[in-house]
């Protein structure tokens, strides 16, 4: 076990916080436009650095981006947070491949029809909401809805 823990420290998915850019601020209008104009499916994950369940699903999201990132646009919406903690979270979990936006008041998820953190929205090309996952998402659910997006239903 000690060796495994040591291996974790040596081969962690973490990156340096300096490699994580400041998250651009966003608002409901910008996200609505992004969804409407997207030619590929979009997964919008609402997270925050202080959110415990977000920590547990972060490694899954990293795996999903690695597997599906060329076919699905993964957007992260960081809510009710601050930039330093948010960037540390992204660095810790190596989530820099996601398209993160900063939404301090949490207006985007409210506009999309969700409340609480975490949330995961699955949108078809053109912005039609296919599924909304309230709370932490597990591998099975994430894989199923990515497959639904991939085959169009």
């Amino acid at each position: 076990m000690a060796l495994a823990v040591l291996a974790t420290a040596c081969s962690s998915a973490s990156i340096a916080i300096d490699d994580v850019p400041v998250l651009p601020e966003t608002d409901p209008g910008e996200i609505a436009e992004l969804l409407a104009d997207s030619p590929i499916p979009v997964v919008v994950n609402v997270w925050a650095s202080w959110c415990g369940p977000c920590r547990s699903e972060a490694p899954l999201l990293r795996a999903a981006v690695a597997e599906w990132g060329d076919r699905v646009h993964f957007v992260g919406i960081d809510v009710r947070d601050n930039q330093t903690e948010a960037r540390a979270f992204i660095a810790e979990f190596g989530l820099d491949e996601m398209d993160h936006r900063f939404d301090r008041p949490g207006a985007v998820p409210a506009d999309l029809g969700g409340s609480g953190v975490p949330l995961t929205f699955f949108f078809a090309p053109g912005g039609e909401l296919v599924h909304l996952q309230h709370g932490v998402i597990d591998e099975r659910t994430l894989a199923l809805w990515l497959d639904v997006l991939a085959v169009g239903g």
Partner: protein
Amino acid sequence: MEFTLLGAALVSVGAVWATLRLADEEERRPLFDTALGGILAGVAVGRVWAMIASGVNPIAHPGDLVVVRGGVDTVAATAAAVITVGYLGRKALWPTLDALALPALAGLSAWHASCVLRDSCLGTVTDLPWGIAASAGGHGRHPVEIYAALLLLGSFAVVALLLRRHRGSGLPAAAALMLAAGARLGTEPLRPVLAGLEPWYLAAVALGAVLVGWRWAARPAEQP
């Protein structure tokens, strides 16, 4: 806790309770200790391993250990549970494993079946008439977790029959391992996953088959 885990836990507890009721009085305490030890070791090691595999250092984030919902590595949990049960039950290894085979199959079956509570039973796309759409107007999909639950229920019946004639020989436990892994291996291609575990299920089927052959050959000769 996820409903699927809760469903499996409730059925497993019920099955262990039934097993203890059916066991001889002097066997109950060691069986209970062994089952509990296996469960605790499986959950703990599976959780730690899941954290390590996903790049989270358990020492730096000890609080994440209790976030069982965040994931329990199936392979590590199973290995830890089997090793712990083997160690705690070493004085009567095969009878212990046989006694715990049915609760394990019941728990696994319930874990799959309770997908209905979370609306997470569906797998890959199918044209079969019983396919169920994940979203309105979508393609029909295999209710793959129900398939797995039914296969495990069938395995439960087979192992229950084996227990009637071969209790204590290790044959029922070996058959349970082979059948449970086979149920998972057989349904895995119908299940969308991010990282498949087919090699592990295949290895478990092979190990189960070897153990079945061994325990069959070693079973006590039947009285004429």
